[in-house]
């Protein structure tokens, strides 16, 4: 929200008198107006010389604010939209797709959590290969642990012509990010690119992967001030915004920590719990088999079904 001064040139009624009136009440930006009651402000204006002009200014600012809300839709429109447009991205593993009734939802944030070497990075790489190859969409892969393996992605795509492989691999863009501020900058850059591309359906960013977001947030969380948790929540908010406004599927990976009585629980605490729409837990079940279960999902039951990812043959097969 811009400071009030910037509205001055466009609207002559918001002159320096009006601005000093607002400053006396502690209103310095358009946002501050939302914290004040219109009638109380009008009463304050009456105590000043030339109250009519001040009230005109107040009415104008409130009109500007009202025009800035998001458009609304009713339930029927949303249902028709969901039924008509397939907004699900398959993950490349049939077992997981059948568990999730299709795959990853576009517009949702999906979190993968699990202990070390339970298959989180492999899942992210596999989903990226699938989206780039089958769905022909752009993938933004944000890597915080130097774990991006182009070799594995080429392996997932399989035996194809070299030119095809090059086209598919060029759809996956990998960023190496090592602190939370760089992550926020990358996300804002992505948002800007998406805003200018909204008309082209083909070749738009369909998947955003962050592997892993917990390694960026752990160093700042828990210190004396609330700044760490504030940054975590604003990152989560930005991810949800990018997912919802541009129809991107967001996949983030998180690690686990030990909870009460020797159980394991996802890291990042209670404030993070509400951010992902879907939470999946991966565990190793002996050998190089992994099991994946649902902890939270907007429309499916929790943790009752599971599927197996077997990657001992260096290619991911599935068993349900």
């Amino acid at each position, binding site marked *: 929200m*811009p*400071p009030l001064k*910037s509205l001055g040139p466009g609207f002559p009624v918001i002159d320096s008198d009006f601005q000093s009136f607002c400053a006396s009440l502690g209103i*310095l*930006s358009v*946002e501050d107006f939302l914290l004040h009651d219109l009638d109380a402000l009008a009463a304050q204006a009456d105590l000043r010389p030339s109250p009519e002009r001040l009230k005109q200014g107040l009415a104008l600012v409130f009109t500007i604010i009202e025009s800035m809300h998001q458009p609304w839709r009713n339930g029927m429109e949303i249902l028709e939209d969901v039924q008509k447009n397939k907004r699900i991205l398959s993950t490349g593993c049939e077992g997981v797709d059948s568990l999730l009734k299709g795959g990853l939802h576009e517009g949702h944030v999906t979190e993968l959590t699990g*202990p*070390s*070497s339970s298959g989180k990075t492999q899942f992210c*790489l596999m989903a990226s290969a699938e989206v*780039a190859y089958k769905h022909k969409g752009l993938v933004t*892969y944000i890597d*915080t*642990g*130097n774990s*991006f*393996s*182009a*070799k*594995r*992605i080429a392996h997932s795509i399989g035996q194809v012509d070299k030119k095809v492989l*090059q086209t598919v*691999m*060029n*759809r*996956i*863009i*990998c*960023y*190496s*990010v*090592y*602190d939370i*501020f*760089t992550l*926020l*900058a990358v996300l*804002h*850059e992505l948002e*800007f690119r998406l805003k200018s591309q909204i008309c082209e359906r083909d070749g738009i960013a369909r998947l955003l992967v962050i592997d892993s977001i*917990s*390694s960026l947030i*752990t*160093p*700042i969380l*828990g*210190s004396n001030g609330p*700044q760490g948790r*504030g940054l975590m929540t*604003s990152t989560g908010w930005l991810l949800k915004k990018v997912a919802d406004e541009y129809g991107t599927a967001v996949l983030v990976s998180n*690690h*686990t920590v*030990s909870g009460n009585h020797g159980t*394991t629980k996802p*890291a990042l605490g209670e404030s993070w719990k509400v951010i992902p729409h879907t939470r999946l837990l991966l565990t190793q079940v*002996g*050998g*190089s088999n992994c099991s994946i279960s649902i902890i939270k999902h907007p429309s499916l039951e929790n943790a009752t079904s599971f599927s197996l990812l077997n990657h*001992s043959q*260096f290619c991911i097969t599935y068993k349900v």
Partner: protein
Amino acid sequence: MEVGRLPISAAQKGKLISAGYTTLSSISSLSPTLLSRDLNISETDALEIIKHASLGGTMDDCSSSRAIIGAQTAWDVLHEEESATRITTSSVDLDHILGGGISCCEVTEIGKITALTSLIQLAVNVQIPVHCGGLGGKAIYIDTEGSFMVERVLQIAQACAVEMSTSYASSHNSLPPSHILMQPEDILENIIYFRVCSYTEQIALVNYLDKFISEHREVKLVIIDSITFHFRQDFDDLALRTRLLGGMALKLMKLAKKFVLAVVLLNQVTTKYTEGSFQLSLALGDSWSHACTNRIILYWNCDERYAYIDKSPSLRSTSAPYAVTSSGIRNSVSKCQQILRTQAT
């Protein structure tokens, strides 16, 4: 709030918001004098804030800002991976399961009570000149426990120098000229040794490494022996420990990527009581276990040493035998020479 993503202190952010500056564009066009008066801070601080704000603002406007953050397509990464040289471990079996050796741009964690010979072997092998298939680089050895033994390094360096000259002689049918022959003294000179005695020194050194390596670009390997020693004893505030370790892990990852070098960390093995039995696991728990790219566990099995790949984004989980001799790490001499494709236990 856009000012929330500026890398400045929380107090300064609070001052900005209470003065009414919530967007980056409102700050970047100001003069430092005006901002310092509004916020009641020094002009240098105001200038810093304006610099950060204008940098953040230009990200939105510049369409080719991809270069600033260093993004690459998967195709470019594939070519880089294929052409990268790896640091050999001097054991054919170990190199085979590692896909050629320890790779640069990655942080590899080795789990063992002590793995001095392996670490020294890597420090020596990184110096193998490019014309012999190596990296021709220097090594940094950060010692936290005081277990570095110079005599052992000399032994391994001498063995390596002899091997290099014999292989040169066999391929060129003549003795190598003195200017390309590596002497053990040269090898020792190329190992840069740091000794740290507390966790604060360790963190300070990791922070300093960025500047040090920018001035010594030949460094291709950083060894930390061991990364967990100072964090295990008498650390009262566990939340602080997690934050410090997380921050240190990210800095090491950034070093590895920025200077294209390999980072090898030694972690101690401990026992964990889960599901009614004691299991061997690495120290510092779950929050540290995701801080490395690859993890190799060294263990004994019936009088033979084995290395097992516990975590890797691109390698299979297998074991391979190796042996430790007076000349360093070598191939295993046992009867069964095949690589065991065991499932993890």
